[in-house]
């Protein structure tokens, strides 16, 4: 266990060394929130109401702030793994007394902690300036708890895509499509509440809302019943995806030996 | 006729100095501190049309910087230069039609394409008509022995094969002058020899002038008539290669390996032993004082030879020797 914490710690320190990266993400968050503030302010004025499907303008902005900080802070395990497969580094990691996936899990934890942290810092400042004070303490609490599960789900998906690098050369395309699924079905650009009924129902059957919508929505509307419901569904999906990931990992271990890596 | 005329050419680079750490980075952004490096210091020389001129010196001596100024890539900090009647940095594109360049460490052939495709593209770049370009490629592929290589993607060629294609490409538009920056870097002896032969042939048949930089004294001996040695951005020596050879390039390095252990009292008059191991010897001798055949005879008489390499001393040593002996 200690060695895994050391990996996470290394990665936190590693991230501090890239101030340009922090600046880049901060600008992205600011641009994103600024544009959507323009869109939703206009939309609310035209609609002439305080709230649309239960969400006010301020709810909308803080929702998007939470979603965007998570999107820009989620693990990039797929890129790390496929990079390692391409340059052959994967052989060193497999030869070390680590579990390959646990190594990447803690590597990702360290990576994300730092990035989500700075993202939230910047996001709060920008969202506050655009939409007034943040949600209540209950919102923060429920968001943080569901962020954990959301992060694990992201990790499983990213690791699955990363493992695909054992089989195919280019995995960037998979990430792009996955990202768009989260953007739309996960509710990153538009809360599920705004979807037509039929699409909402389909989305809730998929893992994506629990990666994005759950923490963001609970953040602005901390309803206990919704919280427990979301949390249960989220961890059910964690169980499913961890199982799939474990299977995929055993399969790709074999593929690697065939390649002679 | 003069091909290149250089007067008091200078190049100073400003390098940003930055202390480590975030605070220093921030400060450097607003108030950078510069230190100046003089890469070329008031260089003057001439080269005749059709001449084979060697430009040698150790790494960082200013050779490449000079070549880059002569092709118009870099703007000088001072001085004048005229290449085929053009001022390179002012008339770069006009000049480019008349010169060819090869930068040994920067390939110009497209990596994923067969060399023939790059050659045809170069035909367009140099505004040759298609028939003319094909005829010229035909001729060059014979001169450089690359006919069988032209259809293979460049990434699959050996370094020596690639370099022959590179030099051939630089001659496509019948330049009056080619500037070769380290054309033999990283090549083995045979590959070096083939490139040198082809370059010499082009010089004889088409009268193309060759300015060649290298830090390999072998290139110089094999190819050039005249040599300029630079160090620290200045000319330290300028003369005919034959003179340089007679006066300064006389020592040879020899490394031999034997099948059996060599006698511990291995010894030879007129030879400086640099290293004696159980199976091999490394030595240096001056061919003016000790004849080569005597050394060879002695070495082959000492046991069954497995391996032998004879090389010229590195340019650094030649320069050191010139400093010690004084210019000719």
């Amino acid at each position, binding site marked *: 266990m200690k060695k895994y914490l050391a990996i996470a710690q290394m990665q936190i320190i590693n991230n501090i060394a890239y101030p*340009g*990266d922090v*600046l*880049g993400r901060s*600008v*992205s968050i600011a*641009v994103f929130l600024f*544009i959507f503030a*323009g*869109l939703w*302010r*206009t*939309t609310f004025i035209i609609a002439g109401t305080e709230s649309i499907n239960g969400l006010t303008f301020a709810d909308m902005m803080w929702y998007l702030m939470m979603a965007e900080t998570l999107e820009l802070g989620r693990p990039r395990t797929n890129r790390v793994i496929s990079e390692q497969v391409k340059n052959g580094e994967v052989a060193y990691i497999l030869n070390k007394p680590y579990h390959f996936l646990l190594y990447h899990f803690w590597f990702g934890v360290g990576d994300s902690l730092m990035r989500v942290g700075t993202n939230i810092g910047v996001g709060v400042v920008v969202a506050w300036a655009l939409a007034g004070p943040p949600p209540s303490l209950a919102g923060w609490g429920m968001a943080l708890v569901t962020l954990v599960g959301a992060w694990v789900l992201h990790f499983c998906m990213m690791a699955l895509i990363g493992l695909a690098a054992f089989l195919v050369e*280019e995995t960037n*395309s998979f990430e*792009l*499509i996955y990202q*768009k*699924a989260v*953007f*739309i079905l996960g509710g990153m*650009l*538009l809360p599920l509440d*705004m*979807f*037509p009924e039929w*699409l909402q129902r389909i989305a809730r059957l998929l893992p994506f809302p629990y990666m994005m919508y759950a923490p963001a929505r609970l953040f602005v509307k901390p309803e206990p019943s919704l919280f427990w419901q979301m949390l249960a569904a989220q961890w059910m999906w964690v169980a499913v995806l961890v199982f799939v990931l474990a299977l995929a990992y055993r399969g790709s271990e074999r593929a690697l030996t065939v390649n002679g890596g | 006729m003069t091909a290149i005329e250089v007067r008091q050419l200078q190049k100073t*680079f400003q*390098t940003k100095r930055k202390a480590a750490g975030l605070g220093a980075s921030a400060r450097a952004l607003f108030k950078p501190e510069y230190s100046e*490096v003089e*890469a070329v210091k008031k260089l003057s020389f001439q080269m005749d049309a059709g001449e084979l001129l060697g430009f040698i010196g150790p*790494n960082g001596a200013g050779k*490449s*910087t000079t070549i*880059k100024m002569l*092709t*118009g*890539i*870099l*703007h000088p900090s001072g001085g004048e230069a005229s290449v085929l009647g053009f001022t390179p940095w002012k008339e*770069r*594109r*006009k000049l*480019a*039609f008349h010169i060819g*360049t090869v*930068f040994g460490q*920067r390939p*110009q052939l*497209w990596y*994923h*394409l067969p060399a023939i*495709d790059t050659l*045809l*593209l*170069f035909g*367009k*770049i*140099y*505004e040759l008509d298609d028939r003319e370009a094909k005829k010229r490629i035909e001729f060059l592929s014979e001169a450089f022995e690359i006919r069988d290589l032209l259809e293979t993607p460049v990434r699959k060629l050996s370094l020596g094969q690639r370099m022959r294609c590179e030099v051939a490409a630089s001659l496509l538009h019948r330049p009056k002058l080619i500037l070769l920056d380290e054309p033999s870097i990283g090549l083995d002896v045979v590959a070096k020899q083939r490139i040198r032969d082809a370059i010499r042939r082009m010089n004889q048949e088409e009268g193309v002038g060759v300015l060649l930089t290298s830090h390999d004294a072998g290139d110089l001996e094999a190819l050039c008539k005249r040599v300029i040695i630079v160090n620290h951005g200045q000319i330290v020596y300028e003369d005919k290669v034959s003179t340089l050879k007679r006066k300064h390039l006389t020592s040879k390095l020899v490394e031999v390996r034997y099948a059996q252990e060599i006698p511990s009292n291995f010894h030879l008059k007129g030879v400086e032993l640099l290293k004696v191991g159980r199976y091999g010897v490394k030595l240096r001798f001056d061919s003016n004082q000790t004849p080569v055949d005597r050394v060879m005879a002695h070495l082959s008489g000492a046991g069954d030879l497995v391996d032998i390499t004879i090389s010229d001393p590195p340019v650094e040593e030649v320069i050191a020797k010139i400093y010690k002996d004084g210019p000719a």
Partner: protein
Amino acid sequence: MKNIQFLLALWKANLQASMEFRAAFLTQVVFMILNNGAYFVFWILYFDKFNEVRGWTLNDMMLLFGIAACSWGVAAYFFGNFTMLAEIIVKGRLDYYLSLPKPALLHALASRSIGSGMGDIIYGVGSFILSGYLSPEGFARFIFCVFTGVCIFIAFLIIVQSLSFWLGNTTALSQIALSALLTFSLYPSALFNTATKFILLTLVPAALIGSVPAEFVRSFAWDGFLQITAGALILLGLAVTVFRSGLKRYESGSAIQVEV
């Protein structure tokens, strides 16, 4: 004329190179079309709920996406080095282009092709056709706006990346600037206040790639035409000027060598 022939020869070489990896190229193209389509679902959902926003409907957004995607795609596919310029300058890779008798900047830009750009082009044309604004004059205006859009994308990036001649590697900075430009170009500038609109017409000229051309293709208007044309010309002029003056300070990677 000779320069056009040269560009055609360069593009042919690029195509030959990408045909070496045909499967990868086709995959990139298909996935880029899917990627753009999936992103656009946001607007389908939005306009499903709200019919229009400040005069913009779903069809107008399709038009805007068509122009922006096509402009980006043409820039990426035919001038693929436009995002790599800073690195080319800093690592001394301009030497090659400078030693040949063709315009160095043009040569450098067109020497790489980003395969997925073809996907953006196909998506963009498709989105334009589906937008319902397809007519002979509309098509002519669309082509014109794509052309100016390409100029603006490339010119903007040349300017930012040419700062590398003075400041060292500006790749990170130019990526930030590019992502801001790209993001803003995909939204109608009618959503923003006057000050922001002004910035989007000047400092971050995103409106000149997205909303202004979209309105211009919808119906001809002199002020839109002038804004787009002047914007493209000024930016291109500025780009060439900045690049040229930077070239005098070009160090061809030598300074790094000297430092060691």
